[in-house]
């Protein structure tokens, strides 16, 4: 519309069938930032209303999962944890994995879950996936507190079996988190866009995420003889592997980390993000006709 400077032609919104492929309309989303916060609040509050324990569930989930992992992978399967005490190793893995999988699973049903609202009112659809990412970030922060408590316990009371050996990679932690959020968001957006037409994908996500966990170094360190002997180098091409290994490098100084490896994760994330933006943009405009 820039060609027409005439005041009659100053339109605020132009709706047409053609649209730019990459335009996420972030400026418009920014105008709706208050909605983002209230949705985060809603996600958070609504989840534990009418429960006795409320937010305590945020801590119970990872604790029970860690215990289960200690029994199955630690005691029964006897998978080595690279010299790190099992509770610490599993808990860190569980907390990080939960963040990723929650982002992915919740984002992957955005269109389906919000069809009612999307069908009645317009707002930048991107707000909903973003609110999921942020809500989960809060949950992640709470669960991290649990991890830090366990870590401190080991540092002060179990100094004989565990020496804290954090490295400067710790400062990369926010970057790793961001990468994981973007990966979850992108995959989720792609899946949610495709599920508006092909509902089959919803089934795939349910167990696909579980399978993905085993293909990711959550319950085992990537750099171990045993893993290599079984899966070769195959697992290292999982773009989540550099993230998990990087976090471990930062926390315990044991993970496998190389800059080219980190670059690989970044590249995959960026590519997926572009695909997600294109697909989401396309579906967002008309999905209400097919949902």
């Amino acid at each position, binding site marked *: 519309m820039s060609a027409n400077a005439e005041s009659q032609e100053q339109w605020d919104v132009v709706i047409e069938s053609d649209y730019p492929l990459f335009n996420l309309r972030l400026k418009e989303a920014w105008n709706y930032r208050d909605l983002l916060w*209230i949705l985060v609040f809603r996600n958070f509050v609504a989840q534990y209303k*009418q429960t006795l324990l409320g937010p305590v569930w945020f801590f119970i989930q990872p604790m029970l999962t860690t215990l289960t992992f200690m029994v199955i992978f630690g005691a029964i399967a006897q998978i080595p944890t690279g010299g790190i005490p099992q509770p610490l190793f599993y808990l860190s893995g569980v907390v990080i994995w939960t963040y990723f999988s929650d982002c992915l699973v919740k984002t992957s049903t955005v269109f389906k879950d919000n069809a009612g609202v999307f069908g009645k*009112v317009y707002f930048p659809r991107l707000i909903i996936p973003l609110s999921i990412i942020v809500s989960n970030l809060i949950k992640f922060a709470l669960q991290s507190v649990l991890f830090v408590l366990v870590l401190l316990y080991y540092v002060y009371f179990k100094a004989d079996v565990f020496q804290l050996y954090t490295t400067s990679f710790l400062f990369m932690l926010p970057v790793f988190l961001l990468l994981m959020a973007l990966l979850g968001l992108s995959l989720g957006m792609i899946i949610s866009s495709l599920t508006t037409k*092909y509902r089959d994908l919803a089934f795939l996500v349910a167990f696909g995420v579980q399978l993905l966990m085993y293909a990711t170094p959550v319950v085992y360190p990537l750099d171990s003889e045993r893993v290599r002997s079984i899966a070769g180098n195959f697992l290292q091409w999982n773009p989540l592997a550099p993230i998990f290994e990087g976090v471990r490098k930062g926390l315990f100084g044991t993970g496998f980390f190389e800059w080219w490896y980190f670059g690989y994760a970044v590249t995959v994330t960026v590519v997926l993000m572009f695909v997600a933006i294109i697909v989401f943009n396309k579906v967002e405009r008309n999905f209400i006709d097919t949902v």
Partner: protein
Amino acid sequence: MSKAIEVSHLSKLYRLGSIGTGNLSHDFQRWLAKVRGKEDPYMVIGKQNNREAGGKQDVVYSLHDINFTINQGDSVGIIGRNGAGKSTLLKVLSRITSPTSGTVKVRGRVASLLEVGTGFHPELSGRENIFLNGSILGMRRHEINAKLDEIIEFSGVERYIDTPVKRYSSGMYVRLAFAVAAHLEPEILIVDEVLAVGDAEFQKKCLGKMNQVSTSEGRTVLFVSHNLTAVETLCNQGIYLDMGRLAMQGPTLDVVREYVSRDLLARRVVQSTEIKRLGNEHLTIVEAAVENGSSENPTDIIDISSDVRLKITLINHTKDHHLSVGFDLKTAKEEVVFGSGGKLHSPPGMPTVFTCVIPGNFLNDDLYQMDIYFHTPSMSKLFAQRSMVSFEIKDQARDNGFLGKINGMIRPQLQWASSAGITKNV
């Protein structure tokens, strides 16, 4: 006056049939055609949006080449039959779905109310939902804060404002939801038939608020409703959609009149067709017609002096040998003039003709429609259809007497007399 909305060559295609199954191959073919620069094989152009007509193509135009502009401050009523494309138009204007072709240009902030209480979360309190719903409708937090007291007062649910809305009665829920919507301050307000909910008092309140928004606050309002009286009182401009096309735009009264006459005149005779059968499992209406009972040709224009004959040909599928039939005669604006009914012999499985005659010199020069009901002899409901048939009575040219419309729903010819010189009875 400056333009608020400009719609040019707007079209919207819908694919019919089941969506989602067996589409992978269609999608692939479409993609292939697109890559090779050919026309989409599944978009066959030129089909009207007429659900009563059969067609082989599995796409229809829900909107077809719509052009109009709306000036700032206008309140525009959008009318048309069910399926004429009204809701699709609102959805495109409020950016819920995008057009297949054409453009819409909008100046100012748009808020669309296609439903009240969109996004309400049952677990959250009334107050929290005000913020949630307000934000979804595009309000900023400080705007909501500034109006919070006003909204709560308008809703009339102060006592329950910190209770989760899942404990609200449905009336309270709607009140709270409308209160939020009523305090939006967009330049353009798009309203679907949300007023169909709530009790009469509340509807009045809503209509009053909308009137205030459009007249005194100078905002642009788009309003879709089947309630023609509401459209006439609220709107100064009308848009009449017919089968996905713009049939008429202009002053509300003209547009409503055009719609009423076109829509109602189309139904003096209705028949079951192969595509659309009138009736249900209890009975089939082969034909329902309004005839001129005083003329040799029953399809003649019905004059004010002619008998009006309702003729229904039907097949009874029940086991009873009798049917109870009745109608409500209504004006074009849905006001009931009177009703009538009877218990008639109708052997099962055999075409039977029911007739009823409304005498001439009784109805006014006007448009009328009939809701027709069928019951078993013991009055359990079999079939009913609103506005099944409609017709027009004309006061035609005659040598003497008054011509044209006079006031009233009916115009019976009554006996008038005068007697001069006798005063004792007065």
